[in-house]
């Protein structure tokens, strides 16, 4: 039976049937495997033996590995799904599992490791980092193999007792949709007989026949005991091959440990593993047909290394071998596969029956899903033909620093002409990807037709570009690389047309379907000249449709997918038109049936209207406009931005050579300002007359696009037309104007500002002092206004009122224009942090949404102020964030100590007055901080004139004399789960660090998996039946230490309290913990109502606002301040507006009622506890026992 699915699903549908327990932790790109397993388990799907596997999400991969080890030792068939950093965290347990000869299969969507940067994309760095653990490593190179070899791995591990790691390329295979043949239960049964399962169980820990494992061994026996496993490893390759053969007999798909394809007397051979082998095989076939004597060796079993099979697979004629590794091991002679192949050949007599060693070179390719194309493979073969080929090469990049890269022909096209290739460009959430996945399923279901789909997303969390690469053909599709020379290009958002890829990937004579709001006869005139020229050059067949209007009219809102999908079928000719239309209708019923008849009807309506409205545009013979392309970045942008960032932004990052990139992963701040995204048709607009200048809109703006300034009115003389201002509503500052400037090109139209605005026009409650308006008519004026606004003087920090929302919004935000979702609940807190302390802050940021919108290239939202100062930010890892931040504090303290010592030593040379002033500076208020900065600047000047090693040493640490603000920022996934141990330790350390937890109550970045912050009764992935454990009370745990400042804040309920907590936390000389309620798209809300939900969370008592201040206790006052009033809203008043709660009401109403009642009772109980704490005398709280602190 055939089906079209992706590599993840192909693997897990086998793994699920062959296991009893899954212990997991989500990590891209493996999460879908775990999520599917969880979904099936919650729907009571059974495994091969009629049992329902149990799926457990742990706090980290380390925890998952531990639980998995325990489950295995307990006798259950257990598996896990992971990648990258997660796999690394499993290493200690992997050694144990292998050492104990325990049967299990880990399924890994192989992904890069974080080195100079994190990457979610695919390569073999992670699996190579575990090759020494004793796990067998089995590599799949396609979706079909990911399915088949999952079975082979499971069967093999039970037979051999060697644990297996089955891997396939992250994204390239894990997320590629492909038509494959499915294995049925009989196939699984045939290879995994129940006796093996029973044998596994019998080896488990049991008091019925007890023994011990995990002994501590000594020099006398450890070595020998380690060597006992040799026979098991020796037998493994044979067992794997035997199983592959048996599978081949049943299915006709015959695999081998090592496969050779190509010329029987090849002289040049490539050895490769993973999806790249499919490209290598196809390229070899093409080259052999042109008479070249080349071949490709595909390795499937990597550990135990099948040396014999490898050597036997090589033709005797081979003289030159290139071993391609998809990883990098700096400092090694070569990468792992290369070294293994070299050793295998050397040990086996230097070549099959021959006496001379072939020349073996090592090459690196494809790191972090860099493409491996036929042209690149051919390039490697060409390099092998050189007189002296490079011994260690790279392919696919331009290495102009070390000269490792080889040349290749990027235009080599080996695809069969019968393959239909299409590329679609859309914006996230417009339905393009969904429609294409649907199209693939429709076509993949046709007998005799094969389909492939691969999707590329960009780095932003909203308004992001999606590119769908689709192929269809009568043969199975073996092309794991992006589509080029597409016959059909869909451009589903007009704004994307100018991106080089759109017309760049079109073949000559291709059809272009363009979604645009103009009538067909006007479209040509709106295009930029280079676009017109390119269209004419490529003889593009242009079709247009106003899909947005049709979708809206049909009742589908902004989702243009159905409209554009039917147009694709109508003009592409992939299926007969009427047949295609019938199938689309069918699939609409099927896909949307469960969403309700109205939605089905709306989509069917859209189909009819789309076909009517689709129009062909005949192109003239020449370009007619003069309009140039919109520049990617302004001409006056810094050099790095123009050279590197702009290339990345326009999709030409692949062209950047090695020399263009920073050597150590350091990236310049403040580059997001050069990316004017213009992603929203509606943007904020200020009404100066209604505005009371309270600053609330600016406070809540997630993208820092609302800024306020006050200045001498005379400055307005140079202002451009239409620049808005109003008299400053403040006494004591005459002749002063106020402007609230909207950065319209950066606004995402989220409307939080409108919701936050407290004033409305008399008689028009919906018209506020800030409203949304169409962007198009105002955007060019807005550009000029922003430019002028930026010339206005910045408020002096020592004169700004830090105590009010209004006052703080005159401070420069040093976090701006991030790629966060429109309406994000986290970023306003981060922005506030940057305004209050950014000019002296170092920030340790955990992996998660905040590290993605904070640091996902090409642009960087953390920026500098007018003086050039700004937050220094780094994302280390996920699990170590608190510790990393503590380290920043330790370093600062250590260097400050050095500085103070040197100052004392150089007191006379520098000047007693200056030294004493610096050493005694209090540095609490902004003016004191500024004064210290001035002193340090003077100190630097004086040190320049002192010629001594002590002075040089002091000069290297002077920065630490200005009081540094150390912040540890992250989400609840880090703080409550994977980083909880570290956070706890750091809070207990007594050191002066400030922790900001952006609590979305779920793993937002990876798509909504539950955390220990998820509340009772909420639905999340891995808690599909509603969470039955109450949310962890992190605040109470921290309060118990007595030396931690703790606050719970929610800016949508009380921005003033939020501000107070931030300032008190930072001023406190010790660990501070601020837990900030962050509404999120994963709550299932109308994001425009995010602040409203914050308010309701507080009003219902489920998110009490509080502060715990140890300084108060020290004075004898009650340190626990309950800042929100008694609950005055039923919990349902808050929860029923959120899909994460209402989902359960639909799927299991009885359970929803039960949990709802328990949750309401829990709110009341918790409130009672807090109220009691708020009335306690100080002595009933733990004292802070630290000796020295301010």
């Amino acid at each position, binding site marked *: 039976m055939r089906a079209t699915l992706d590599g993840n699903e192909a693997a897990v549908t086998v793994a699920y049937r062959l296991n009893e327990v899954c212990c997991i932790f989500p990590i*891209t790109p493996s*999460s*879908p495997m775990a*999520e599917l397993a*969880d*979904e099936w388990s*919650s729907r009571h799907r059974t495994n091969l033996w009629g049992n329902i596997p149990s799926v457990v999400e742990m706090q980290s991969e380390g925890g998952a590995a531990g639980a998995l080890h325990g489950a295995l030792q307990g006798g259950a068939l257990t598996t896990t799904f992971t990648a990258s950093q997660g796999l690394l965290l499993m290493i200690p347990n992997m050694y144990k599992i292998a050492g104990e000869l325990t049967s299990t299969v880990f399924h890994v969507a192989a992904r890069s490791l974080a080195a100079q940067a994190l990457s*979610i994309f695919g390569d073999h760095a992670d699996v190579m980092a575990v090759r020494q653990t004793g796990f067998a490593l089995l590599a799949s190179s396609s979706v079909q193999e990911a399915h088949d070899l999952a079975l082979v791995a499971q069967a093999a591990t039970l037979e051999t007792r060697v644990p297996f790691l089955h891997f396939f390329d992250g*994204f390239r295979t894990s*997320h590629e949709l492909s038509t494959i043949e499915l294995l049925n239960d009989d196939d699984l049964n045939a290879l995994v007989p129940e006796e093996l399962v029973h044998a596994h169980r019998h080896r488990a820990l049991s008091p019925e026949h007890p023994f011990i494992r995990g002994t501590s061994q000594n020099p006398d026996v450890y070595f020998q005991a380690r060597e006992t496993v040799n026979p098991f490893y020796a037998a493994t390759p044979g067992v794997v091959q035997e199983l592959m053969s048996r599978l081949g007999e049943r299915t006709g798909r015959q695999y081998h440990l090592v496969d050779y394809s190509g010329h029987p007397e090849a002289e040049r051979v490539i050895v490769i593993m993973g999806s790249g082998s499919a490209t290598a095989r196809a390229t070899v076939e093409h080259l052999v047909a042109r008479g070249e004597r080349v071949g490709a060796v595909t390795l499937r079993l990597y550990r135990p290394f099948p040396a014999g099979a490898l050597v036997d697979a090589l033709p005797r004629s081979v003289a030159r071998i290139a071993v391609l590794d998809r990883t990098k091991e700096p400092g090694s002679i070569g990468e792992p596969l290369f070294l293994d192949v070299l050793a295998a050949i050397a040990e086996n007599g230097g070549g099959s029956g021959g006496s001379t060693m072939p020349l073996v070179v090592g090459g690196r390719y494809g790191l972090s899903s860099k493409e491996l194309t036929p042209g690149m493979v051919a390039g490697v073969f060409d390099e092998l033909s050189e007189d002296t080929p490079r011994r260690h090469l790279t392919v696919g990049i331009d290495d102009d620093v070390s000269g490792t890269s080889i040349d290749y022909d990027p235009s080599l096209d080996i695809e069969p002409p019968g393959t239909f290739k299409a590329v679609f460009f859309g914006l*996230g*959430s417009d*339905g*393009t*990807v*969904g429609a294409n996945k649907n199209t693939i399923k429709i076509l993949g279901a046709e007998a005799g037709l094969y389909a492939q789909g691969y*999707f590329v*997303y960009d780095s*932003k*969390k*909203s308004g*992001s570009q*999606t590119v769908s690469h689709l192929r269809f053909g009568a043969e199975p599709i073996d092309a794991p690389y992006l589509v080029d020379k597409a016959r059909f290009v869909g451009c589903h958002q007009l704004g994307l047309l100018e991106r080089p890829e759109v017309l760049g990937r079109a073949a000559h004579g291709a059809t272009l379907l363009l979604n645009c709001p103009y009538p067909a006869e006007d479209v040509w005139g709106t295009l930029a000249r280079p676009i017109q020229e390119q269209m004419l050059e490529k003889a593009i067949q242009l079709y247009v449709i106003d899909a947005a209007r049709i979708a809206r009219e049909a009742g589908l*809102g902004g*989702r243009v997918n159905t409209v554009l999908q039917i147009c694709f079928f109508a003009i592409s000719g992939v299926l007969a038109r009427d047949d295609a239309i019938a199938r689309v209708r069918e699939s609409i019923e099927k896909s949307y049936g*469960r*969403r*309700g008849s*109205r*939605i089905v009807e709306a989509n069917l309506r859209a189909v009819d209207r789309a076909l009517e409205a689709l129009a062909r545009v005949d192109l003239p013979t020449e370009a007619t406009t003069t309009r140039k392309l919109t520049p990617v970045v302004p001409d006056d942008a810094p050099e790095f931005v123009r050279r590197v960032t702009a290339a990345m932004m326009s999709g030409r990052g692949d062209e950047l050579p090695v020399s263009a990139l920073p050597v150590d992963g350091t990236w310049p701040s403040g580059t997001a300002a050069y990316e004017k995204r213009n992603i929203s048709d509606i943007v904020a607009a200020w009404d100066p007359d209604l505005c009371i200048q309270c600053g609330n809109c600016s406070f809540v703006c997630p993208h820092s696009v609302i800024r306020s300034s006050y200045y001498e009115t005379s400055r307005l003389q140079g202002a451009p037309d239409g620049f808005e201002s109003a008299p400053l509503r403040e006494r004591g500052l005459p002749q002063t104007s106020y402007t609230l400037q909207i950065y319209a090109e950066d606004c995402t139209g989220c409307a939080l500002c409108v919701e936050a605005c407290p004033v409305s026009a*008399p*008689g028009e*409650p919906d018209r506020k002092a800030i409203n949304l308006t169409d962007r198009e008519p105002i955007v060019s004026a807005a550009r000029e206004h922003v430019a002028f606004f930026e010339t206005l003087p910045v408020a002096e920090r020592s004169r700004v009122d830090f105590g009010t929302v209004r006052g703080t919004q005159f401070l420069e935000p040093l976090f701006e224009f991030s790629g966060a*979702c429109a309406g994000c609940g986290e970023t306003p807190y981060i922005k506030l942090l940057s305004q209050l302390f950014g000019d002296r802050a170092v920030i340790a940021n955990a992996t998660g949404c905040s590290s*993605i919108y904070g640091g996902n290239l090409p642009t960087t939202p953390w920026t500098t102020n007018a003086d050039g100062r700004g937050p220094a930010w780094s994302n280390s890892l996920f699990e170590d964030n608190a510790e990393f931040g503590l380290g920043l504090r330790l370093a600062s303290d250590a260097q400050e100590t050095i500085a103070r010592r040197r100052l004392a030593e150089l007191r006379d040379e520098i000047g007693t007055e200056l030294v004493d002033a610096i050493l005694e500076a209090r540095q609490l208020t902004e003016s004191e901080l500024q004064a210290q900065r001035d002193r340090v600047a003077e100190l630097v000047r004086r040190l320049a004139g002192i010629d001594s090693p002590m002075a040089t040493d002091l000069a290297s640490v002077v920065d630490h004399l200005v009081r540094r603000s150390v912040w540890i920022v992250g989400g609840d996934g880090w703080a409550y789960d994977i980083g909880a141990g570290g956070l706890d330790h750091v809070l207990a350390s007594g050191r002066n660090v400030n922790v900001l937890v952006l609590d979305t109550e779920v793993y937002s*970045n*990876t*798509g*909504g998996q539950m955390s220990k912050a998820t509340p009772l009764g909420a*639905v*999340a*992935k891995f808690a*599909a039946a509603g969470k039955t454990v109450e949310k962890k009370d992190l605040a109470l745990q921290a309060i118990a230490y007595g030396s931690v400042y703790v606050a719970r804040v929610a800016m949508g309920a009380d921005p003033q309290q939020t501000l107070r907590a931030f300032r008190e936390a930072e001023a406190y000389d010790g660990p501070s913990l601020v837990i900030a309620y962050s509404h999120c*798209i*994963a709550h*299932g*809300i*109308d*994001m425009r109502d995010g602040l409203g939900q914050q308010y309701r969370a507080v009003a219902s008592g489920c998110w009490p606002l509080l502060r715990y201040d140890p300084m108060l206790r020290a004075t004898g006052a009650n340190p626990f301040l309950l800042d929100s009033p008694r609950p005055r809203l039923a919990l349902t008043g808050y929860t029923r507006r959120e*899909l994460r709660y*209402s*989902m359960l*009401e*639909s*799927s299991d*109403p*009885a359970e*929803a*009622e039960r949990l709802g*009642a328990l949750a309401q009772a829990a709110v009341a109980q918790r409130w009672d506890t807090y109220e009691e704490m708020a009335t306690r005398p100080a002595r009933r709280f733990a004292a802070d026992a630290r000796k020295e602190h301010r």
Partner: protein
Amino acid sequence: MNLATTYMGLALRNPLVASASPLSRTVDGVHRLADAGVGAVVLYSLFEEELDAEAERQSWIADAGSESFAESLSYFPSAAGEEPGPRRYLSLIERASAAVDIPVIASLNGVTPGGWTGYARAMQDAGAVAIELNIYYPPGDPRVPGRQVEQRHVDVLERVKSAVTVPVAVKLNPYFSSTGEMALRLDGAGADALVLFNRFAHLDIDPETLTVTPGLGLSRSAEARLPRTWIALLHRRLRASLAASTGVEGPEDVAKYLLAGADIVMTTSSLLRHGPGHAGVLLDGLHAWMQRRGFADLGELRGKLAVPYGVDEATHERAGYVAAMQTANSTMYGPW
């Protein structure tokens, strides 16, 4: 003292029924009402457009942000976008019916023909012993003739009656041109009970915020006069049971309705105002009054003060009106 009675064929332990309200949104709430002593409970109304709106909203929210960012291609378990449908309500019917011994009546406020019949059938399948049709069509369009409005009511009833076998009640509003005739027509179309009356939501104006606010306040005793008048007129002229609704605050209001001829008396406002336990106050008061007046069971008092059967109703009403005016002129607010 026997308070037992029947209502559209259902046996009730007493004539006091909790009508559709937020109190009957949960099993717990239904329990409390039953414990407080009511003879039957009408569940909160299922609104068809609420279900539609919910389905649309849920679908839209479930898709929001999806397929945008590689690490989070979706934010919810896949069931998220599925149409919630009436599952919640049907589950409530099942569980509430199982949880209490008194009849649990479902209430349906539909819009489309398919909606009325589909949901009614589902409610019956879920175990509802009867269905109350909350036919709410305020004729906001001044061009729609009265006859059309009336016909709509009859059509809905007929459609539902053809789709289910359990008894069907119709909750009426009083604003028909000839309410009595409407009642007869519905009776003829197969209504097993008529609930007199529903209350339209009336919009209020806030002159300070200059906004229009929907108003649906709790009823007061004085408002009971209108339904009482019609019940008195319709008693014994219909096959269908008569349920009184509106303005029940104290036991005397229950008594008045019964004397006017109501088979059962419904209340929501008083239970919301004073809590479900207020049902006990009403029943105890009814009991005490019956004892005082010497009635042993409801049969002895029901309809005692209804418009007598066989009388010319129009003349009777007109005469009553004239008499009322005369009394008012001479006794209230002084002579003119």
